[in-house]
């Protein structure tokens, strides 16, 4: 649906040259929700503005349904933009217009008659659940309601793509969830393709099919959300994942001097990541019985991403060194990632080979 091909965007004010987007290529398929995550300044907002050419790429192409938007005339580009809706962090509603006229704004020039326009606006407001707010002004609405108006307005010209620029970043967690739910519904109902920019991993976790992680203008990791969550490769990605879970806290606790878990020198501390099918197998008790060791779960976190469970456990193995090794090998055979963690009390002979 959209292909960002080798796009670079530099800002040059004569003195400083800033490379906001650095040779990024992303392919977004029809009907998927594609997430782009990064810290502020990573270039993700610039990148999403390159898609509808609010920012013109310095280099590279933007293909929308196979056609390169960067070579279009301003007039043709404006027509194409009507097929690419956009919503914003600050909603950007027209304060001088009420809800009805905000939604009707993009319909001007669409050759709809007054009654058709009315019908269309009412439909859109119903779609986002704001039928009763037609005559309210933006200042009378809550953040979540404002974003719903923003969504209705962005959908007025029946776009095929919806760009969301930090659309939930100004909202509280509960409202965020309801807006994300709405986006997911719209995707199903209208067959929308959604590109979503965020700095919150929880947003990605909630609705994205695929995700790119951006850092300093570059995409450093890309893939299926489940894959990224269960097996991140880059440090920055892991950093984001920790914001969505508590696992970093458990490491802090483990580093403490007073050894609250009473870890002995021959015990082996591991981080165990698993996903999908193996969740249902009682593996911990299985190895415990099979290899005569004790396995103590110090911490666990389970996410459901697109109906797939993704789990992370911190497990302390207590027992004979050889048996522990066998248990870990058994886990790995089952397709579970096991990483041995230094706990500062390890005896030297124990495993340093990590997965």
């Amino acid at each position, binding site marked *: 649906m959209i292909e960002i091909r080798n796009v670079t965007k530099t800002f040059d004010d004569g003195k400083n040259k800033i490379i906001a987007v650095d040779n990024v290529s992303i392919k977004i398929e029809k009907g998927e929700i594609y997430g782009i995550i990064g810290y502020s300044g990573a270039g993700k907002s610039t990148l999403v503005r390159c898609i509808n050419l*609010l920012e013109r790429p310095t280099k590279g192409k933007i293909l929308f349904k196979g056609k390169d938007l960067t070579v279009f005339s301003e007039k043709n580009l404006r027509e194409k933009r009507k097929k690419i809706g956009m919503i914003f962090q600050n909603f950007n509603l027209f304060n001088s217009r009420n809800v009805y006229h905000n939604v009707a704004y993009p319909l001007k020039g669409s050759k709809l008659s007054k009654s058709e326009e009315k019908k269309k606006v009412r439909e859109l407001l119903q779609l986002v659940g704001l039928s009763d707010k037609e005559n309210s002004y933006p200042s009378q609405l809550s953040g979540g309601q404002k974003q719903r108006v923003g969504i209705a307005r962005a959908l007025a010209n029946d776009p095929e793509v919806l760009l969301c620029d930090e659309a939930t970043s100004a909202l509280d967690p509960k409202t965020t969830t309801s807006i994300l739910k709405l986006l997911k519904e719209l995707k199903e109902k209208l067959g929308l393709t959604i590109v979503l920019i965020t700095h919150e991993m929880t947003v990605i976790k909630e609705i994205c099919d695929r995700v790119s992680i951006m850092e300093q203008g570059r995409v450093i990791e890309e893939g299926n959300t489940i894959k990224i969550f269960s097996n991140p490769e880059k440090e920055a990605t892991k950093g984001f994942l920790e914001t969505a879970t508590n696992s970093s806290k458990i490491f802090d606790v483990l580093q403490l001097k007073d050894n609250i878990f009473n870890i002995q020198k021959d015990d082996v501390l591991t981080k165990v990541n698993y996903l999908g099918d193996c969740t249902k197998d009682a593996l911990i008790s299985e190895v415990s019985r099979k290899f005569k060791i004790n396995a103590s779960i110090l911490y666990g976190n389970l996410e459901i991403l697109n109906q797939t469970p993704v789990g992370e456990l911190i497990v302390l193995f207590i027992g004979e060194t050889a048996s522990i090794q066998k248990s870990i090998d058994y886990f790995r055979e089952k397709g579970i990632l096991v990483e041995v963690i230094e706990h500062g009390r390890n005896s030297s002979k124990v495993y340093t080979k990590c997965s």
Partner: protein
Amino acid sequence: MEEILLKYIPNVLNAKEELIESIHETFIMVSIPGVISLVLGVLLGVFLVVTRKGNILENKIFNNMLEKIINLFRSIPFVILIAAIIPVTRMIAGTAIGTKGALVPLVFGTVPFFARQMESALSEVDKGLIEAAQSMGSSPTDIIFRVYLREGLPGIIRGVTITFVSLIGLSAIAGSVGGGGLGDFAIRYGYQRFQNDITFVTVIILLIFVSVIRGIGDILIKKVTH
């Protein structure tokens, strides 16, 4: 009643007809240049904003030129401006004296001021709204009329109010150099003949003028702000 008036403002009663004529002249000197400046000022204000770097009709050369011209006129004191543009005034109005001759300098004095007021009013329009309009496929003309002039309306009205109030001030200056109006009236009678009651009454009338303009402005702003 008449006794009281006679006691406190005897000179005003003597010059009653001239006072009414002066009010009329001031009204003309404020309304005609006011309306002309409104049109030109909005136009220039819009140009100043949209041709700025990074805006929808970015044009560095045009913007620079406009800036320079506006700054030039803004930096000339009004009394001197009246004298300086006499040839232009003669060309446009046919005369450089009287109320008619005051209209041209008043326009020249007001337009740059009002253009700056417009510029600041339009600059207050959130950049995000322009971006949103662009993302919905709005053309530059659409953005000017449906976003800038509409969303900036409270600021525009505030600018119009301030401009009209300052125009009253300028009309008094224009009056003192031969344009007639309340300023001229107060100078000739109140100042030069030491008829203080005339100065006092003129001040009251001007105060009423200003209050009415302010009042209308405030009502309109309230009406367009949601």
